[in-house]
């Protein structure tokens, strides 16, 4: 497996090999699916839309519907305005969404299509029915990553919907970051249990984890409602979870509607979840309910019960930057040593943040933004680790080097669970830690000589 990968690391400045990121539009499409009755629309060639739908479908094993401006060479040369106009006309008549969320692609960005003007013109020309919305995000594929695209489309929700007049000082906004449907559900459950009215947006729960009932619904039950997206402009404040995915929207909301915000790490692991809970406590001015304290204590209990299997284990982790920051902290708090921390998304502050967490824990960690899995594999070839945590693509490295592997992040194309069980919050922490511990135990069992095969672990 991956037999062509040499141990010797050659510096590269141009060739990306086995990326740990993908392009903006898929993130924008995912975010847009978090609006109720929204059809994401890809303004570019057909291939982009097809690829994004396919990859999201593989990850969720769920319908992922989106439309495209179907650029041909003519559009590439003369501009995509006619394509967008034709698209809107067709879409509203045939698919009847409440919102069309347009994102651009490298093609439409390169030719400089001006989407806001096109939308304005379409509105004037009655291509957009009354009461329907067309929003947009500029998501050039050659900037940032899928996380950036998510961030930009989330910001677009603020730009288009937020209304400062809908004041409610007991309501808060939660920007969940680029996380899974069950994570968004869990954030809603937690804030509701703590007695706070929270608008979580985007919200892909009940959109990308729909039931099998024999009834297909093009627009499932879930997604943030337009009323909610408008109301975010009048909330008391915004909790932005994960700066890479959520800071743009939080800032935009402050600028547009003067809603103050606070950026937090993704609430993954005990300490980051504590800070999330504390931030909500500041609104409620109450302790969280006992059930939540118990969930927390159960997570800590697993950490202490299974400490022997975690302590000092070296881990290579890769994934999206907001996840990697909190995951690093979680692993450190459980006694593990994340020695390699990689994200494909660019961002120097990522490196600084992770190195700060690892200070005094891992002597010389390799922490890299804008890196790739080929590099990670070479690092591992030179210094093998006890565990790899990352998306499905990590399994090639894991197989090549015979290292235990836990799937976490986007995309997971080859296992089930990520659509249903959160990894955020205290409960999510138990689920993730269960996977980590059981993976380590599986390996111990696999490698144990008969006389050291343990009944109790």
């Amino acid at each position, binding site marked *: 497996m*991956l*037999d*062509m990968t040499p141990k010797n690391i*050659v510096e590269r*400045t*141009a*060739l*990306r*090999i*086995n*990326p740990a*990121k*993908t*392009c*903006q*539009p898929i993130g924008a499409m995912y975010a847009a699916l978090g609006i109720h009755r929204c059809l994401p*629309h890809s303004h*570019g*060639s*057909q*291939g*982009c839309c*097809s*690829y994004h739908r*396919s*990859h999201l479908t593989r990850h969720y094993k*769920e*319908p992922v*519907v*989106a*439309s*495209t401006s*179907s650029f*041909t*060479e003519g559009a*590439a040369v003369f501009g995509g305005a*006619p394509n967008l106009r*034709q*698209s*809107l*006309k*067709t*879409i509203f008549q*045939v*698919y009847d969404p409440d919102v069309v969320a347009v994102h651009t692609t*490298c*093609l439409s*960005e*390169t*030719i400089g299509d001006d989407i806001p003007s096109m939308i304005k013109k379409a509105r004037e020309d009655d291509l957009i029915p009354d009461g329907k919305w067309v929003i947009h995000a500029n998501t*050039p594929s*050659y900037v940032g990553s899928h996380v950036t695209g998510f961030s930009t489309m989330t910001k677009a929700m603020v730009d288009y919907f937020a209304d400062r007049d809908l004041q409610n000082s007991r309501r808060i906004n939660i920007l969940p970051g680029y996380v899974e449907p069950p994570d968004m559900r869990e954030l809603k459950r937690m804030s509701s249990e703590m007695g706070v009215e929270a608008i979580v947006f985007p919200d892909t729960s009940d959109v990308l984890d*729909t039931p099998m*009932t*024999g*009834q*297909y619904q*093009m627009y499932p039950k879930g997604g943030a409602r337009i009323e909610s997206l408008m109301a975010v402009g009048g909330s008391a404040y915004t909790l932005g979870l994960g700066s890479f995915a959520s800071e743009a929207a939080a800032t935009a909301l402050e600028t547009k509607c003067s809603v103050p915000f606070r950026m937090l790490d993704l609430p993954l692991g005990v300490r980051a979840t504590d800070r999330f809970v504390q931030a909500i406590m500041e609104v409620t001015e109450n302790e969280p309910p006992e059930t939540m304290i118990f969930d927390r204590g159960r997570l800590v209990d697993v950490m202490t019960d299974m400490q022997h299997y975690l302590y000092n284990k070296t881990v290579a982790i890769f994934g999206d930057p907001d996840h990697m920051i909190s995951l690093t902290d979680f692993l450190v708090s459980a006694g593990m040593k994340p020695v390699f921390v990689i994200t494909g998304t660019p961002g120097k502050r990522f490196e600084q943040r992770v190195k700060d967490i690892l200070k005094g824990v891992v002597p010389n960690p390799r922490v890299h933004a804008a890196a790739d899995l*080929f590099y990670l594999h070479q690092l591992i070839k030179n210094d093998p680790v006890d565990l790899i945590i990352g998306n499905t*693509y990590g399994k090639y490295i894991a197989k090549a080097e015979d290292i235990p592997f836990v799937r976490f992040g986007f995309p997971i194309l080859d296992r089930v669970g990520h659509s249903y069980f959160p990894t955020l919050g205290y409960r999510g922490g138990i689920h993730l830690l269960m996977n980590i511990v059981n993976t380590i135990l599986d390996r111990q069992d696999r490698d144990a000589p008969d006389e050291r095969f343990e009944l109790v672990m």
Partner: protein
Amino acid sequence: MPGPRMSKAPGVDPEEFIKEVTDLYPTKVAKKRQKHFIVRRPDEEQAIEANVRTIPGIITQRGCCYAGCKGVVIGPVGDMVHIVHGPIGCAFYAWNTRRNLFTPREDGKNYLPYCFSTDMQDEDVIFGGEKKLKQAIKEAHEIFKPKAISVHATCPVGLIGDDIQSVARQMKEELGVEILAFNCEGYKGVSQSGGHHIANNKLFDQVVGTDDTEPEGKFNINILGEYNIGGDAWEIERVLHRCGINVISTFSGDGSYDEMKRSHMADLNLVMCHRSINYMAEMMETGFGIPWAKVNFIGIHAMAKSLRKIARFFENEELTVAMETVIAEEVAEAEAAIAPYRERLKGKTVMLFVGGSRAHHYQEVFKDLGMQTIVSGYEFAHRDDYEGRQVIPELKVDADSRNIEELKVQADPDRFRARKSTEALEKLKAEKVIDYYEGLIPDMGNGTLVIDDLSHVELEKLIEKFKPDMICSGIKDKYIIEKFGVPSKQLHNYDYSGPYAGFRGAVNFARDVDMMINNPAWKLLKTPWETQPILKAKLGSE
């Protein structure tokens, strides 16, 4: 008169259905879409609109030119480094997602599990990406030492004016390895189809005919348009080898650059996926004198028939006898194996919406299972794939096809060799053994539907009206279809199963179809209280 199995949806008139579904569109769109539907009438010559633009906003199955070039034709060649020049996404999505399997040859080279990209950034778009591309090629060469490198352009590349052909030439000179540059920007053409053509052109131009090593076999062939999804090519080769046939090269499943270089030494080209590869078959015939035969290895009887075509071509007693022996053995074995599945599947209905040839090929294996294809259509085919190659001269060159180069091929002065006498070739043509493909439509039953470039809403309506037992399509449709409670088989990637080609593949396919249609989980879609009244407590033990 509705077809035999359309009766499953009694009262649904296919013509009315077309009207009903196209009425959902804006008027102009409806008019265009209507041309992509036909109700099959065996006594009529029927034409269908195909290979034209998808109307923007319609939710389509189609992808782009890059997908057809890198994703389909070039990507499967395992002993080359394929660099995608552009932003990261295009490379990422085509990374290991297509199941075109590959076994490294003696040199051990296998770049298939790798994803190479120039990961173009905004500064590259602004200032041009040629420098980065050159550097990327250098780095690939330094780290991997491949014998050949391909470069694939994505959307922005053409627009910003990167001359990848010139870069390829320079770097070939500098590094001394072959570099193939494909101008397959995503927006070219109307679907993946343009990309196939671009890929064929370059392979023919720069690879085929560059190594004259004599093949070892007695009966030497190439297989064209076979991508070894789930190991199809291996099963086909297993059977061919049993018959005594030597496969020089496969385009491009389990494909090897070295083998393609000597593919012009074959005596016959077998064409599986007509849509993606017929260019190559044509060009190799013109350039090197290799006739081609359309084959279909999907289905027990289709496989047998295709083998007999080969025997017919070679007109060799020994080969014919060997082949009949193999056919007798393998057919008997496969039929016995599928018998229990057929028992549970016969009479079931299926719809096929796949690619550019599979929607035709798979009808044969469904026939083996006693199942009926009631609706069928392609995602990116041309009219000849529907109606047969006789329509090719009629096909108009429009704005979207004009930008895909048509190579002017002439007989290679040194390498052209007529494989048979002119008379023999004419006879084979007359018998439809070579250079012939009749298309999908003739095989469709009376009253069935043929639909080109099926859209999302059409799919929904088809399911609602015709309630098929299974639909074969791709990943984007799969879970939509299944949410309706209808099993959906992915015929692009076989639902991660396979092989489905050849005799043993047909058995795999039968097993998998049975698995899907007869899975007891489908009985759980409704809660019991949806179908039964709530009973008042009955007390006691269950």
